C-alpha cells in the first residue's frame, strides 16, 4: 500500500465499501423495501466516512495533481456511459413488457421494483466509475 497514492487508496476504500454494502443488498436479500434502501444508503455513507478518515489519517502526502484529475474524469465518463447504456436497456425492456401487456404500473410493488432497478443502475455505474479509475491508475494512466 505504500506505493499507492492517496487517491488510489481512497478509491480502493470506496470500491470495498461499495462491494461490502451493495453486493449483499442486491444478491443476498430481497430488495422490496424502502427501509432496506435507506439502511443501505446510510450504511455506505458511514462506511465511507470511516474508511476515508482512516486513510486520510495514515497518509501524509494527500496531494492530488493533474493526472489524478484526468483519471477522475475518465472514471466519470465510464460511469456515465454505463448508466446511459443501462437506462436505454431498461427503457427498451419497459417498452417490450408494455407491448406484450405484462406491465402493471398501478401496483405499489411495481413502483418499488422500478425504484430498485433505477438504484441498481446507479450502483453499477458508480462501481464502474471506481473500477475504471483504479484500472487507469494500475496502467499508470
Amino acid at each position, binding site marked *: 500500500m505504500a506505493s499507492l497514492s492517496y487517491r488510489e487508496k481512497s478509491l480502493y476504500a470506496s470500491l470495498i465499501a461499495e462491494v461490502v454494502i451493495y453486493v449483499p443488498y442486491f444478491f443476498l436479500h430481497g430488495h422490496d423495501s424502502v427501509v432496506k434502501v435507506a439502511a443501505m444508503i446510510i450504511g455506505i455513507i458511514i462506511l465511507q466516512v470511516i474508511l476515508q478518515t482512516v486513510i486520510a489519517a495514515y497518509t501524509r502526502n494527500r*496531494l492530488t*495533481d*493533474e*493526472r489524478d484529475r484526468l483519471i477522475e474524469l475518465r472514471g466519470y465518463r465510464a460511469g456515465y456511459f454505463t448508466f446511459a447504456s443501462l437506462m436505454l436497456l431498461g427503457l427498451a425492456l419497459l417498452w417490450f413488457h408494455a407491448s406484450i401487456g405484462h406491465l402493471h404500473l398501478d401496483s405499489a410493488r411495481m413502483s418499488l421494483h422500478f425504484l430498485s432497478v433505477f438504484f441498481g443502475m446507479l450502483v453499477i455505474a458508480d462501481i464502474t466509475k471506481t473500477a475504471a479509475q483504479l484500472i487507469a491508475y494500475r496502467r499508470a494512466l
Partner: protein
Amino acid sequence: MPAIRNQIRELRAAREMTQQDLADQVGVTRQTVIAIEQDKYSPSLETAFKVALALGVTLEQCFQFDPRGRR
C-alpha cells in the same frame, strides 16, 4: 515508440535526485513522476516546463516529440 519521450530518469540520476524530490519540486505525486518516466503519461505543458526547470535544462533537452510515434 511513444510520441512524447523524455530523459527525466537520466537527468534525475545525474543530479542524484529521487523521484520524490522531483515530485515535490514540480508539485505532483511520485506516482505521476513514475508514469512520466515510463512514457505512460504525457504531462501538461505547464508541468513539463516545471520538470525542465527543476532539472535545470530546457524543455527540448527533457522532452522529445516523435511525430511517427503512437499517441
